């Protein structure tokens, strides 16, 4: 009874509202809501009875018999726990959308209610012809509501939809004829008993129908047009009701198709995923992007159907499609259909983020759990297939990020746009919590992960300390920036938990949370879109690589080398090595400065942590030399780039990547000395890069610019900031007695010990080139002439100054007593299995290897002594000099024109540029631009399939049908 009510209540409501709708609109809307609520209650009761949320509950069944007798004579509606949960989503989607859509367009309520009944009917249908009836109702309502919706291109969309449904009708009925004639009945399960050519024909017909209906590439053309042109609020309803129902019905259909080889489905799906999403890369229209995303999910369905079976299949499809649908509904609810060109114009990306991240399947959002399990299965079947799927998913995330990052509008205040959307977001959040709580765990990374010990604690200290100290300054954004504090905190907490995570999956989840919280933090900057987009793309890529490695190392098929390779690639991307610095530069320079400090100082260390801890030394050994070379060349190239750059934050970004190159080099050496150098340098880099970026934050907060040409002379206004920056610059330049020299010393010892002299040379050259940008940074910002417009500039705010002070104190302590750290670090590194080479000896304050020795304490004392002596001697030896004005310079007897003209900061190293002129200009932006262009071109080839002519889409369907029939016919004897 409850089942019948759950299915048919909306229909009764539809009959009622059809009568009411033009008489009393408000009452009609109220009744619509009431019926939907009643239906929701009913379906919830059913779900509870079936125990749908418990283990195995998805397969529990409840049958609603209709007519007389039993199937095959009559028709059953079968509710499983699986479909009951989906039905809940259908109701929720309809409830969310009814106000935004039907409230706006009177007379649509009966159709909406009918659509709910139909969706449920389709999901529960067990009869072949009965499904057809439901499909037809759904199509008719879709056409009707599309035509009735508020959108300029409604006719085109409605017509295309109508033509598609016309073709589907014909193909489906042909299948009905064949099925009935060969099996004598019309139950869905009967189809699977078919054999021979009829089976092939029916499979072909149905597969074409399904691919068209679920909008799987290459039959997705009409779906793309649909999402682009349709009333976005109708799309909201459509996604959670009809679209979901068709997906789930298709999910069941695909299991009963009498295909000769179900693996074909996975191949079609994977191919469609890659090519279809490739075509979507260049997409700019937000509605169409959602169409492409739908097409991605359609492909995922095909892949699942070809590879996963049983209870897994049920839970995976459910997780994927319900949450994707709900997310899409939420996204569409935020749209303003009155805005024809960009319905999301007024929506800030911040609001869109939750549903969009949900769609891309970033952990801990529910789709992620489904994704990782799907990939696990695929990894066992074919790593190649898995790779293709990951590539396709990555493409999807790229345009989704673009959609998100291009939204820069202010927070939309109008309540009417957001009540439903917020509810959708809340539901998503709840779903996230719920699925995360029940998520399956137990995957692990290869190697000896998460050894407790000093190294782990060191990273813990870096993550926690970095977060805490970057945070105070983040509460107030710089000029034009919003405060990234919340997201920095989220990211930082996730980072801090990283070393404590118990297994690979947790690690990955925390990694992604940290990355994407950081992405959001970056988006708070003054010019966010570009940097945010690239950061998101690279973080996404790194995440997918890590995911692939995680899944592969868990699987049985592949060799252990490949996961390591992927981990290394992920870490390199994360650290911007080997040309991936594109994102660092763009993100750091557009992010709020404190966020950049956090990213560069603290967050980038996660990649080092990943490398150090996931790589058993044996696994990294084959990659070692290549890693070291990548690190060395990156260190050199980025140092050169930093020298030629004239934006404060970009320079720091290049410098950050360059410095991390040394870390990679050290790790690549796989010796005790190398790893000690790498970890020691990591800690150093954490200190000085945090100081530098926080200093930059202070400067930018006070002056409002990060351009070298408009800064200068700030030492007179911000002496403390200058002092801290000076110390950290001396440190990273590796000049004794400050701590940067320590890491260099260890590194060269390691390099020479391994006989890698060319590498040592490149490293040496890089560290000399580092002087160029180090000095330029100090000079252009703090020294030279103070521009008159900065006369009133005050010292940086305490919130960034105090942390700098703390960092500097640690840095100084470490400079004079590096053994404070090395005492513990060296034994800890030495105890890591598989690391070769000699172990440096620590005696007192001195450190020695068979090659050389270094006593930081005595060097420090000597420098302090000589310096102090010189100072005192100068002080007592004569009169005090007179402090003169900034323009009191020997200027050939002239008065200098103005401070700005005398300040020589732009194109500071022009001779360097000239000297480098013999090199071809290889900018990472050009390389990546080339990659993007190639992908675009390739995508354009596939995009050109979608000519916009509905007849072409029909022809595609027919061609696919023909090809499939011929293919399967050829495939079976």
């Amino acid at each position, binding site marked *: 009874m409850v089942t019948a009510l759950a299915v048919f209540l909306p229909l009764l409501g539809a009959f009622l509202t059809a009568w009411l709708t033009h008489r009393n609109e408000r009452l009609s809307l109220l009744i619509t809501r009431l019926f939907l609520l009643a239906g929701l209650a009913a379906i919830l009761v059913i779900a509870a009875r079936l125990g749908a949320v418990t283990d195995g509950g998805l397969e529990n069944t409840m049958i609603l018999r209709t007519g007389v007798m039993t199937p095959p004579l009559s028709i059953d509606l079968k509710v499983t726990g699986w479909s009951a949960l989906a039905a809940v989503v259908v109701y929720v989607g309809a409830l969310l959308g009814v106000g935004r859509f039907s409230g706006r367009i009177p007379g649509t309520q009966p159709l909406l209610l009918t659509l709910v009944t139909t969706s449920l009917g389709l999901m529960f249908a067990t009869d072949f012809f009965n499904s057809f009836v439901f499909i037809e109702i759904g199509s008719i309502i879709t056409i009707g509501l599309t035509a009735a919706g508020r959108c300029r291109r409604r006719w085109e969309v409605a017509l295309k939809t109508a033509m598609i449904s016309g073709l589907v009708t014909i193909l489906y009925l042909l299948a009905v004829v064949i099925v009935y004639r060969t099996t004598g009945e019309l139950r869905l399960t009967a189809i699977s008993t078919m054999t021979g050519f009829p089976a092939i024909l029916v499979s072909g017909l149905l597969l074409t129908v399904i691919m068209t209906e679920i909008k799987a590439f290459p039959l997705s053309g009409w779906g793309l047009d649909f999402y682009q042109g349709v009333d976005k609020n109708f799309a909201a309803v459509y996604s959670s009701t009809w679209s979901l129902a068709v997906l789930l019905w298709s999910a069941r259909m695909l299991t009963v198709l009498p295909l000769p080889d179900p693996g074909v489905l996975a191949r079609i799906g994977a191919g469609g995923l890659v090519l279809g999403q490739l075509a979507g890369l260049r997409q700019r229209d937000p509605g169409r992007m959602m169409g492409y995303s739908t097409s991605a999910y359609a492909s995922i369905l095909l892949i699942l159907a070809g590879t996963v079976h049983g209870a897994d299949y049920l839970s995976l499809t459910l997780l994927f499609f319900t949450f994707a649908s709900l997310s899409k509904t939420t996204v569409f609810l935020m749209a303003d259909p009155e805005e024809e060109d960009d319905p999301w114009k007024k929506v800030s990306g911040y609001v869109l983020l939750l549903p969009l991240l949900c769609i891309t399947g970033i952990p801990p959002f529910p789709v992620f759990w489904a994704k990782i399990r799907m990939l696990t299965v695929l990894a066992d079947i074919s790593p190649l297939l898995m790779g293709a799927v990951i590539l396709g998913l990555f493409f999807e995330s790229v345009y989704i990020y673009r959609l998100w990052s291009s939204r820069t509008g202010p927070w939309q205040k109008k309540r009417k746009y957001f009540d439903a959307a917020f509810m959708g977001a809340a539901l998503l959040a709840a779903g996230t919590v719920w699925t995360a709580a029940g998520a399956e765990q137990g995957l692990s990374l290869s190697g000896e992960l998460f050894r407790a010990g000093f190294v782990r604690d060191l990273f813990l200290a870096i993550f926690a300390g970095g977060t805490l100290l970057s945070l105070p300054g983040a509460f107030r954004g710089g000029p034009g920036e919003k405060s990234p504090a919340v997201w920095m905190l989220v990211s930082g907490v996730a980072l801090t938990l990283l070393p404590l995570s118990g297994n690979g999956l947790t690690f990955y989840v925390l990694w992604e949370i940290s990355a994407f919280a950081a992405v959001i933090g970056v988006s708070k900057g003054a010019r966010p879109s570009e940097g945010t987009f690239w950061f998101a793309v690279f973080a996404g890529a790194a995440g997918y690589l890590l995911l692939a490695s995680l899944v592969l190392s868990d699987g049985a098929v592949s060799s252990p080398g490949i996961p390591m390779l992927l981990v290394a690639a992920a870490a390199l991307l994360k650290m911007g090595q080997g040309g991936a610095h594109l994102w660092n530069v763009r993100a750091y320079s557009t992010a709020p400065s404190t966020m950049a400090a956090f990213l560069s100082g603290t967050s980038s260390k996660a990649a080092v942590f990943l490398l150090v801890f996931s790589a058993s030394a044996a696994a990294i050994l084959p990659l070692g030399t290549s890693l070291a070379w990548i690190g060395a060349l990156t260190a050199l190239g980025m140092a050169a780039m930093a020298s030629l750059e004239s934006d404060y934050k970009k320079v720091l970004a290049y410098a950050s990547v360059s410095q991390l190159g040394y870390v990679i080099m050290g790790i690549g050496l796989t010796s005790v000395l190398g790893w000690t150098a790498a970890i020691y340098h990591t800690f150093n880099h954490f200190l000085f890069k945090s100081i530098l970026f926080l200093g930059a934050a202070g400067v930018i907060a006070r002056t409002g610019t990060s351009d070298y040409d408009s800064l200068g002379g700030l030492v007179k206004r911000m002496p403390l900031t200058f002092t801290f920056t000076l110390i950290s610059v001396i440190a990273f330049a590796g000049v004794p007695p400050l701590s940067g020299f320590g890491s260099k010393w260890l590194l060269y010892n390691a390099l020479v010990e391994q006989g890698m002299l060319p590498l040592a040379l490149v490293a040496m050259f890089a560290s000399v080139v580092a002087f160029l940008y180090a000095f330029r940074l100090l000079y252009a910002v703090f020294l030279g002439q103070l521009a008159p417009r900065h006369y009133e500039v005050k010292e940086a705010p305490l919130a960034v100054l105090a942390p700098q002070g703390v960092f500097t104190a640690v840095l100084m302590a470490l400079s004079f007593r590096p053994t404070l750290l090395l005492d513990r670090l060296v034994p800890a590194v030495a105890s890591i299995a598989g690391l070769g080479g000699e172990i440096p000896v620590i005696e007192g304050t001195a450190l020695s290897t068979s090659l050389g020795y270094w006593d930081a304490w005595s060097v420090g004392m000597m420098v302090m002594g000589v310096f102090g002596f010189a100072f005192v001697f100068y002080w007592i030896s004569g009169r005090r000099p*007179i402090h003169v*004005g900034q323009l*009191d310079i*020997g200027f050939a*007897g002239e*008065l200098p024109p103005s401070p700005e003209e005398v300040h020589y900061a732009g194109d500071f190293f022009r001779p360097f540029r000239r000297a480098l002129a013999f090199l071809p200009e290889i900018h990472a932006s050009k390389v990546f631009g080339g990659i993007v262009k190639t992908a675009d071109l390739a995508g354009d080839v596939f995009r050109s399939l979608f000519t916009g002519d509905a007849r072409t889409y029909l022809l595609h369907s027919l061609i696919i049908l023909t090809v499939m029939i011929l293919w399967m016919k050829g495939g079976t004897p």
Partner: protein
Amino acid sequence: MYCNKIPDKPVDNEKIWKKLDDLARANSLWITAYGTGCGAIELRPLHTSRFDMERFGIAMRPTPRQSDVLIISGYLSVKTLKRVIRVYEQIQDPKYILALGSCTIDGGMYFDSYNTINILDRYIPVDVYVNGCMPRPEAVIDGFILLMKKIKEGKAVGWKRYKENLEYYRKNQREIIRNWDLPDYNW
């Protein structure tokens, strides 16, 4: 942007080293390489092996900060005077002025020009005049030797005079330089 502090009046309080100091100053005269007029061409031969001024410890410095001697090489126009004042004041004490040619003494052949300085000593304190139009390098070296002698005797005190009578010099300077825009003292 400019330091407007008027320099303190010089005091002789370091008697102990004075002899040694004067000796060193006399034997290490660094010239500001600054040609103010036609006579600058006569200075170049001083570098050559024929005249070789380095044997007296005389060297050219490209910046007033590091030099001791300013050579006024010929007539000064009003325009140049302004620059000379600035360069001279930027030289650190003790500093000396060697004026070359008749023009610096009484205006020479340009005595009636509307735009030249006739009596240089009214504007900046000259320690040694070398007459001639132009004086030959030998004469210049002779002037240097005279200057060295004066320094050793402690008589080359133009810089002290300038500081003590700054108001006087400034008045004269301001009289002739109409668009006066220099700071109170050019540090």
